[in-house]
């Protein structure tokens, strides 16, 4: 018995020094906390995992709308023991937390990595107890199948009978009758933005039909206020002039953080971490690390392998919708900065690509990051904005419109007929943020 306890203690000591396996739920209105989470992959002691199954820490950041509370709890209950939830939000109004009753609640945490490490260690050494399930462990509907896998049950095939996806026969793109599976992906599928849920009909891994569920963040929540957006210079620039250098550095950092996420989805975690490191240490005029990263991606042909000919958004589909880099990647010279006197004084010219595919959108954002750092170095103390519309990293934002809402409408056409991997690459390349609808509330 003593040997077993001793061995367990040795294992616990070793395990507590292992990288903390964290699954992130990113809500809205997280402010600076979101930047701390984005930098977590740079910590040797932290791994952001793609599946809650192998996570020990659930990091819930910001606010989640009520419609996402139950899905968030389902994510929680999928985690392995020992597990713990850390809830970080600037505007926590209830303790214990309304979504995760057992969560460790912080209103801010500058030392996020240290907090994660501490909770992880205490969890593994038994100093903290593992959280129980929040939801009852019941099947979503009565199992009516016959046999161990329900293969013989009446009514257990076709569509989503009794809450479970079951295959049905349907013609494929070549006219053959093949199994088709209806599934819902999201709202916490890591490659997608938080809140995006797709209802897809799959044949193998080919998408035959896709529908986008309602945006859970698109509410007129009266609790949102102007102050909540102060961390974002583009939100501020809607209402008052902001230094161009600040806007452009924020744009470059945004594109590099997006690139890190896109690289992760393509299996290039190390290069993704490099991109985050560049974003963190970026200064005006410091184009060398961006140029070096671009060179690596060109030489290894990773961007071409991932996105050449994938998710083509034709100019007609994206014209005059304020889609920013998505439109410019299709060859359209749409950029609100070109109409701003501050940018005109800097001889600003929008950079554009031609093909409009996912590859073009990657190169577009890298080129814009490069351009932004150069602009920031030349901008001096010039200011832009204050007239209710501004070219943000994702596109044109105004008091009553945002590019993500516009881009959501592209998804069904863009994804139909694609293999799942290409569909994910396409969605990632749109750089959606459903939480951006908060801008509407800022009005």
């Amino acid at each position, binding site marked *: 018995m003593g040997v077993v306890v001793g061995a367990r203690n040795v294992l616990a000591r070793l395990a507590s020094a292992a990288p903390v396996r964290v699954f992130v739920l990113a809500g809205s209105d997280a402010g600076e906390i979101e930047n701390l989470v984005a930098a977590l992959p740079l910590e040797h002691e932290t791994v952001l995992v793609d599946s809650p199954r192998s996570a020990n820490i659930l990091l819930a950041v910001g606010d989640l709308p009520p419609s996402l509370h139950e899905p968030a709890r389902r994510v929680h209950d999928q985690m392995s*023991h020992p597990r713990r939830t850390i809830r970080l939000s600037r505007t926590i109004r209830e303790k214990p937390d309304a979504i995760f009753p057992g969560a460790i609640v912080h209103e801010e945490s500058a030392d996020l990595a240290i907090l994660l490490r501490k909770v992880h260690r205490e969890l593994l050494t038994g100093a903290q107890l593992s959280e129980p399930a929040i939801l009852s462990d019941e099947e979503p509907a009565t199992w009516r199948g016959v046999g161990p896998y329900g293969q013989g049950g009446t009514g257990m095939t076709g569509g989503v009978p009794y809450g479970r996806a079951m295959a049905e026969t349907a013609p494929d793109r070549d006219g053959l009758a093949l199994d088709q599976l209806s599934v819902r992906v999201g709202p916490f599928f890591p490659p997608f933005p938080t809140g995006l849920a797709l209802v897809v009909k799959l044949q193998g891994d080919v998408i035959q039909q896709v529908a986008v569920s309602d945006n859970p963040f698109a509410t007129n929540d009266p609790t949102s206020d102007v102050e909540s957006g102060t961390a974002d210079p583009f939100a501020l620039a809607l209402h008052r002039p902001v230094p161009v250098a600040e806007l452009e550095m924020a744009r470059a950092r945004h594109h590099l953080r997006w690139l890190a996420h896109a690289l992760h989805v393509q299996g290039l975690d190390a290069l993704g971490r490099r991109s985050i490191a560049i974003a963190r240490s970026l200064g005006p005029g410091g184009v060398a690390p961006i140029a070096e990263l671009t060179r690596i991606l060109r030489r290894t042909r990773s961007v071409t392998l991932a996105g050449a000919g994938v998710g083509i958004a034709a100019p007609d589909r994206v014209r005059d919708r304020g889609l920013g880099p998505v439109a410019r990647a299709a060859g359209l010279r749409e950029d609100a900065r070109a109409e701003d006197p501050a940018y005109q004084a800097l001889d600003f010219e929008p950079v554009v690509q031609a093909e409009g595919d996912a590859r073009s959108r990657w190169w577009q954002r890298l080129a814009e990051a490069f351009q932004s750092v150069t602009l920031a170095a030349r901008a001096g103390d010039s200011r832009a904005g204050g007239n209710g519309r501004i070219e943000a990293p994702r596109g044109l934002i105004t008091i009553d419109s945002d590019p993500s809402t516009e881009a959501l409408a592209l998804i069904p056409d863009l994804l139909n007929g694609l293999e799942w991997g290409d569909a994910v690459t396409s969605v990632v390349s749109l750089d959606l943020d459903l939480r951006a609808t908060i801008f509407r509330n800022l009005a």
Partner: protein
Amino acid sequence: MIGLGRHLVEVLSVVLVLSLGVYITVVLDVIVGQAVAGLSLRPLSALMWPFRQAALFVLQQRTSTERADAALWALAPALLAAIASASLLAIPLSRTSAYADIDSGIVYFGALMALVMVAVYLNGWSANSLFPMIGGYRFIAQALSYEMPLALVLIGTALPAESLSVNAIVLSQESLWNVVRQPLGLPLYLIAGLGLAFWSPLALPDAADLAGGTESELSGMPLLLWRGARAAVLVAVAAMGAAAFLGGWHGPVLPGAVWMVIKTIALLLVMITIGHLVGRVRLERFVVVAWVVFIPLALVDVFAAGITALE
């Protein structure tokens, strides 16, 4: 009784060699990852990383899914590890120390590696969950594309040796390694090997766009075993590559076994570095390129090797 003891020692030594290979693979992966990321290298942390990660998975709960096929799910990592272990038997570590100098060692290796498809598909199918299942499907398409080039380039190395024995193939490289004699062979073998070990950029069944694919529902010990077994397959691929193309245990001054280890680690390093620099390949593109480019090139490699052997 003595014979049984000897076999037991041999089995344990295979497990030990493979475990060491897995350990080296994981450490290399951490170090190369840190270098590519441009982060400060932490050698001690990298050396401890496999132990710490393994301890965490041992203590982590093993989760399950609704109506999973528990028996086959448990079998999948064991099968993958067994395939890697058994394949090592035919690879000579030195002139006299192959566990089993099988006359048709190349065929034995290829036959075992064909079973990787079974293990990966089982892991994907038996979870009774969407993303693991798609991961399993993906690997079947991937395997049907890399298996032909893999088999052909290995047959190419057997022609100059006039034998299917791996030891004979190593002996045939005493004056000239196959990497020089058959320049198409090693690059094609490494690409196919990355596919076989479903290692990035061909980690399609376990890719991030499937939230981990066949391993997305795994946690704890099953996840530890699965990842360990996958690394073991990569070790087996590297070891066979060292024997078939880099002269195996041939080399000056140092003992043959040391040369074999150095060459295996060198190939591991090449494959791991590729994995950190080249992004996930689209499955459709890989299938097309494999059938249109790799298989014809592998055929050219075999024909050239045959003509050279006849001279």
